[in-house]
């Protein structure tokens, strides 16, 4: 890039300033903004479609809404899962981090932007292919597609395209970071880009597992090249990916907490070094957590399961650090504004600012979600709640509140920022109410799901009376409450999607800030460089993966069960 050479030799502090002006001249950002906008449109359209399907599920389970035979409950649920877990979240993540990288690493290079677009279209093609198979009833296998249920091969090819798209988006991030580092020798990567690298490293390496499952096991098997499949190996590979995916959305949300919140509440960022340590820990420790989805599976011995309880609980460590960091920045910003006493800072927080409120509720709900997660990772409790509605309640708190609400909070400034528009006070108020409505709806639905799950109500189950059994009918009042919560949530999502499109196409033209907090350490001292050694972190990550997976996978392959032929039970 030419601006790099122009500003050679200008002192540190001025350098940033000159770069800012140059960026505007070059207009690089506009093209990057278009890319980010495309990702956001797809993300929020999927959210709307997914939410409408969610409403259908909530109503159906309560016996209020009957589905036609050509679009049954499990087709709806497969689509809900795919749209929300795979599409809404990943398109948001790419849009947000690409915008962030463009902002903090002096714009995307032409090559990276092209990669971003090619990732976009590859993922769209994959998503359309996969969802089309669900719609025509050839892939009613839910988003977890556990073998030996076998969908049409087109479904798996669709998933393959999605993964190929994901890989392109990962390379775009890695290339951008490497370029910047070369041009800024010895300096730490700007913090938002550091989070991006962490997120995409996890995304890249965890998707290798699902790619192995789909390409080397499922596709040859659905095509009839091999007769049977090893069910346990497939499940294990899936969860190495599936579990990590959820934590990637969490890492994306956390990046906004650490980097964006301080600027919005006018306080310093938490220690730059410790923030990076949290990212590194989340990356290094994450992938083994997949086993906590298999605590009651046969074919995995008890000592191995026990080791994984520990490996799952350890992921709690960086999260507990995050809790500390958030209180720390709240308190600092409160003190700066003259707050007194132990809790005086609480009143000084900008409660009327939707950008803040959404993030705050997201953080608060992670205390609930995190506690529930710790509970269900423990063997005996897991056995009580496994596959019950408790679990659905749990991941609507963690995904729907913690992750999605953070994404909503980010959208209130990111969408106007990339659209050359402004968040007006009026829209801020509307966004504020959106946050409240969504929080109320999802709290009702999730809390009731936790409770009725403890009573034994199963997840992934269409409306049923279980032949009039009394235990089953005692769940009915709760299922009605769930339908009520689902209705309020759907109103919240409609308001949210309206907000996004209003901010993108209708709001008054202007400039909305991309709020990035200043490091607490300031820019004066030169910070140590060891946090930037990604090759070391990736090696450590593989070491934990090896510890977690080599023994059980080898056991499953060598002493594993005889395989299963493809089955179609829908």
């Amino acid at each position, binding site marked *: 890039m030419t601006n790099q050479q122009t500003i050679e030799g200008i002192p540190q502090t001025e350098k940033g300033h000159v770069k800012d002006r140059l960026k505007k001249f070059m207009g690089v950002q506009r093209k990057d903004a278009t890319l980010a906008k495309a990702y956001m449109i797809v993300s929020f359209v999927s959210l709307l479609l997914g939410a409408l399907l969610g409403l259908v599920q909530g109503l159906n389970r309560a016996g209020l809404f009957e589905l036609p035979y050509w679009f049954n409950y499990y087709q709806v649920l497969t689509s809900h899962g795919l749209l929300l877990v795979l599409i809404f979240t990943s398109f948001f993540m790419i849009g947000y981090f690409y915008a962030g990288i463009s902002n903090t690493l002096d714009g995307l290079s032409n090559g990276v932007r092209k990669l971003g677009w090619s990732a976009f279209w590859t993922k769209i093609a994959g998503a359309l292919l996969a969802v089309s198979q669900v719609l025509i009833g050839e892939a009613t296998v839910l988003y977890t597609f556990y073998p030996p249920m076998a969908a049409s091969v087109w479904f798996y090819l669709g998933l393959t395209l999605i993964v190929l798209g994901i890989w392109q988006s990962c390379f775009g991030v890695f290339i951008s970071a490497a370029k910047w580092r070369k041009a800024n020798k010895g300096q730490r990567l700007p913090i938002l880009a550091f989070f991006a690298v962490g997120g995409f490293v996890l995304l890249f390496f965890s998707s290798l597992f699902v790619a192995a499952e789909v390409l080397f096991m499922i596709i040859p098997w659905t095509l009839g090249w091999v007769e049977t499949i090893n*069910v346990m190996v497939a499940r294990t590979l899936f969860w190495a990916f599936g579990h990590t995916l959820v934590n990637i959305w969490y890492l994306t949300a956390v990046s906004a907490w650490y980097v964006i919140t301080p600027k919005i509440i006018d306080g310093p960022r938490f220690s730059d070094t410790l923030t990076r340590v949290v990212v590194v820990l989340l990356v290094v420790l994450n992938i083994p957590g997949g086993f906590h989805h298999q605590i009651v599976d*046969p074919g995995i011995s008890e000592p191995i399961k026990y080791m994984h309880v520990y490996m799952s609980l350890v992921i*709690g460590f960086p999260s507990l650090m995050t809790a500390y960091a958030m209180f720390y920045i709240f308190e600092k910003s409160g003190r700066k504004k003259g707050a007194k006493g132990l809790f005086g800072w609480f009143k000084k927080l900008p409660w009327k600012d939707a950008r803040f409120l959404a993030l705050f509720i997201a953080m608060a709900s992670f205390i609930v979600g995190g506690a529930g997660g710790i509970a269900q990772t423990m063997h005996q409790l897991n056995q009580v709640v496994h596959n019950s509605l408790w679990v659905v309640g749990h991941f609507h708190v963690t995904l729907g509140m913690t992750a999605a609400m953070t994404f909503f909070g980010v959208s209130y400034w990111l969408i106007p920022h990339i659209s050359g528009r402004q968040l007006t006070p009026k829209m801020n108020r509307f966004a504020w109410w959106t946050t409240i409505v969504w929080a109320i709806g999802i709290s009702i639905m999730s809390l009731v799901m936790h409770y009725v799950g403890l009573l034994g109500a199963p997840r992934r*189950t269409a409306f049923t009376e279980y032949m009039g059994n009394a235990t089953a009918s005692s769940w009915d009042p709760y299922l009605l409450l769930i339908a009520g919560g689902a209705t309020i949530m759907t109103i919240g999502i409609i308001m949210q999607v309206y907000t996004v499109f209003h901010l993108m196409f209708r709001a008054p033209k202007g400039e909305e800030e991309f709020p990035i907090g200043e490091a607490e350490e300031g820019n004066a001292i030169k910070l140590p460089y060891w946090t930037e050694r990604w090759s070391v972190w990736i090696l450590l990550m593989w070491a934990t993966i090896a510890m977690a997976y080599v023994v059980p996978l080898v056991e499953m392959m060598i002493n594993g*069960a005889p395989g299963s032929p493809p089955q179609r039970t829908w």
Partner: protein
Amino acid sequence: MHRYEKIWLTVSSVLIIGFTLIVGYQAFAMDLGPPSDMETIDPQKVDSTAPFDEPGITQIGDKEYEVVMTLQAFSFTPRDLEFPEGSTVHFIMTSKDVVHGMQIAGTNFNAMITPGHVTRMTQTFDEAGDFLVICNEFCGTGHEMMSTEINIR
């Protein structure tokens, strides 16, 4: 590092290690570990492999029973089981097709029944009642119909 930071990090570590130790104690000292059977079976030959060639109930002692059960889309074999109050029942289960779950609502009985694996679990029924047994893993379009009862008299 600040003093509070150190306190918090210590508390966090103690919490995590504490939970791990509790789980370990329950699993290994109290024998409350999750179902983790390593026994395998050819899922295509369930009907001709003992003991699943003859699913059913056998009384093996005073108020002690053994149930050999197959799960298949969308039923349990045998179904509608009946035992006297206070019975201890040993279940031996496998799947003939896809992944199923077996849960007895109102108890801690909850297991994945995967094709190729044999799962053994024991449950004592101390109270009379009609216990609902359901499949709690999606197994196809009749999944919500896959249920039966255990009647304790």
